[in-house]
């Protein structure tokens, strides 16, 4: 590897504390650091206020503190074509998309990585909580961030060797608390900035209102698995499997939960109790599996996550051919959601992941 002072690292800076500390740490290590802000979405209102402008102002403050050059780049078009259309298409298909996974694959570590490389960068660094391990055989492995509560490998499961080779995740070795402390100690302008939450292009806005402005809502019946109508839903896309809030079904007994969606007759299947049996699956089918290192062609046992921050679950993975994989759970899992990512781990190493196509509800069908 080149010496740090001869190594140009471009840091993707969002104006948040994580990417600010990323840039600060690399600068301390002696790298030639350049900060670049990525604008993917325009939410400028009638008074000219745009969250991107405010975030970019924070990038400027931090870069001036670190005495590094900063620039901005616009990927609104790429984001719209690759991430937002996917996001809408998935909702139209009655699924729950994960735009962060696609954004990492197509924008941050593709369009943006290409941009960084065109600027003569040796590496692109981001503030993700994950680790890149460079192996002796010239391959790279992606490891979980040491802060298990913040580990973001779930969202990075689609990255390839080529992408990861050019990537640095300096925060992977740190906990969020340590990162905040570094920001405070260094007096960075973003030290006390609140972490962003939710989907980046929706921000603090009401999710339902946002979606309504892009997709027509089709209200329909909420029914029990036995076919009893319990009320009206506002449109299937507004609901997620396992959701309790916002159903408005009263009455006696345990609270009501969304247990399934029936796109064909536009009904929302609801059931009583957090542990309603209809919410549980024995396995799932996954597509678009990306193997970060070796493509696995024989059945094997590992751990998996079906949602961000979930604790690891034991599974056995069976390649089914045609890019499809059957993943069998060692213990039943609640609210397996089509469209979300399933990510596989071997200890600290993230093996890769794919998209959940379909939950397998019964033991019989799992063993079929």
């Amino acid at each position: 590897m080149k010496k740090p002072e001869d190594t140009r690292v471009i840091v993707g800076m969002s104006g948040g504390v994580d990417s600010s500390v990323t840039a600060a740490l690399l600068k301390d290590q002696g790298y030639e650091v350049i900060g670049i802000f990525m604008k993917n979405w325009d939410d400028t209102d009638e008074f000219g206020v745009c969250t991107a402008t405010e975030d970019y102002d924070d990038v400027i403050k931090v870069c001036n503190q670190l005495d590094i050059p900063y620039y901005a780049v616009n990927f609104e078009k790429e984001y719209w074509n690759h991430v937002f259309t996917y996001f809408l298409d998935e909702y139209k298909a009655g699924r729950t998309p994960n735009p962060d996974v696609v954004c990492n694959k197509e924008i941050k570590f593709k369009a943006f990585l290409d941009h960084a490389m065109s600027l003569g960068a040796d590496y692109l660094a981001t503030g993700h909580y994950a680790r890149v391990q460079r192996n002796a055989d010239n391959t790279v492995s992606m490891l979980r961030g040491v802060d298990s509560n913040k580990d973001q490998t779930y969202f990075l499961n689609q990255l390839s060797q080529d992408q990861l080779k050019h990537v640095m995740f300096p925060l992977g070795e740190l906990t969020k608390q340590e990162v905040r402390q570094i920001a405070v100690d260094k007096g960075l302008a973003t030290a006390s900035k609140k972490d962003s939450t939710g989907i980046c292009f929706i921000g603090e806005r009401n999710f339902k209102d946002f979606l309504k402005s892009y997709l027509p809502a089709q209200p329909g019946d909420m029914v029990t698995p036995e076919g009893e109508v319990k009320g009206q839903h506002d449109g299937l896309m507004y609901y997620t499997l396992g959701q309790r809030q916002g159903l408005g079904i009263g009455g006696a007994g345990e609270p009501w939960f969304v247990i399934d969606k029936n796109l064909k007759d536009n009904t929302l299947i609801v059931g009583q109790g957090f542990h309603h049996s209809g919410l549980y699956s024995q396995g799932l089918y996954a597509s678009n599996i990306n193997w970060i290192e070796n493509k696995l062609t024989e059945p094997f046992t590992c751990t998996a996550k079906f949602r961000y921050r979930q604790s690891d679950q034991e599974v056995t993975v069976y390649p089914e051919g045609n890019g499809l994989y059957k993943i069998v759970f060692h213990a039943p899992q609640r609210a397996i959601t089509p469209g979300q990512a399933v990510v596989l781990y071997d200890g600290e190493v993230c093996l890769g992941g794919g998209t959940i196509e379909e939950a397998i509800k019964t033991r019989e069908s799992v063993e079929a």
Partner: protein
Amino acid sequence: MKNIYADHAASAPVHHEAAKAMMEAMENNIGNPSSIHHYGRKARMQLDQARQQLADSIGAAVDEIILTSGGTEADNLALVGYAKAHKDQGSHIITTQIEHHAVLHTCERLENQGFDVTYIPVNQYGQVSLEAVQEAITDKTILVSVMHGNNEVGTIQPIEEIADIAQANNVAFHTDAVQSYGLMPIDMKQTPVTLMSVSSHKINGPKGIGFLYAKKGTKLMPFLTGGEQEKKRRAGTENVAAAAGFAKAVEMAVEQREERAGFYQQLSDYFLKCLESEGVRFELNGAKEERLPHITNIFIPNISLESFLVQLDLAGIAASSGSACTAGSVEPSHVLSAMFNDPNRSASSLRFSFGQGNSFEEVEQIAKEIRTIVHRMNSG
């Protein structure tokens, strides 16, 4: 690595003499020009001298010069101030598609307030046709606004002829001369211009000051009210030090006009020659002859502008894409869009603008760096 500044059309460095004049004014001339005591009189005297300098530079009278915070305010006062003061006489304004945003966005605001605006197109060299101006005039037209030299591509408009057309039709004429002032002589005794906007920092004066020339008797509705400064057309205590610096910069610009224009032209010509000898594929944007001498805008096929400007900057070279962009929003240039029906043209065009500090060696260096970057991008 030596840094090269080739973005003088964005802002030119303050001349040392202008800075000295400002410093002296700040340290030695402490009064408010409106005060009755001797401190006030001294400040007033310096301000009057500065105003005289500005007026003389364009053959105007001192009370035809309204000091403003810069070119943008001058454009705003000209358009909004004139339109609002003459709305009884008509509601139609004519401008072009290639004006600076200070004019275009102000016209859009006027449209929202009930005025009709015609935006005249340009040809592929960025030139407005006189016939188009003539044809656009109706009996409701009150004002024609056409810039003198374009800030992005440098094309010069025939403002003398346009001013004549406006006068013949009894319509006021405004010109944004922010980029041309100091390089293109203009004499208000010869040319029937009603309003003209000028900025200080484009001619090596300080930022934050400019003026609007308003022909004697031109009614304007002010938007800053308060004291009686600028004959009630622009309230607020005058920035005496900036005016002193501006006046010094104007004095030098007038004295050295031909010399400067000639030098900038040589730099621009040499730049194009160097690009050719480096084997860079490019096309010039803007008129070949009727162009401001310091601005060279080139189209380099198949380059990504965002990446190109960053690479130039990392190599120490400051250039621009024509209009400034914020937070990664690169709007396609409205000027190039008006000239070419080709979105790639504006996505791959760069502006270099030269000034007094530049040298032929620097121009060579820029051309070499452009070649290096083009090669790197095409091989990547």
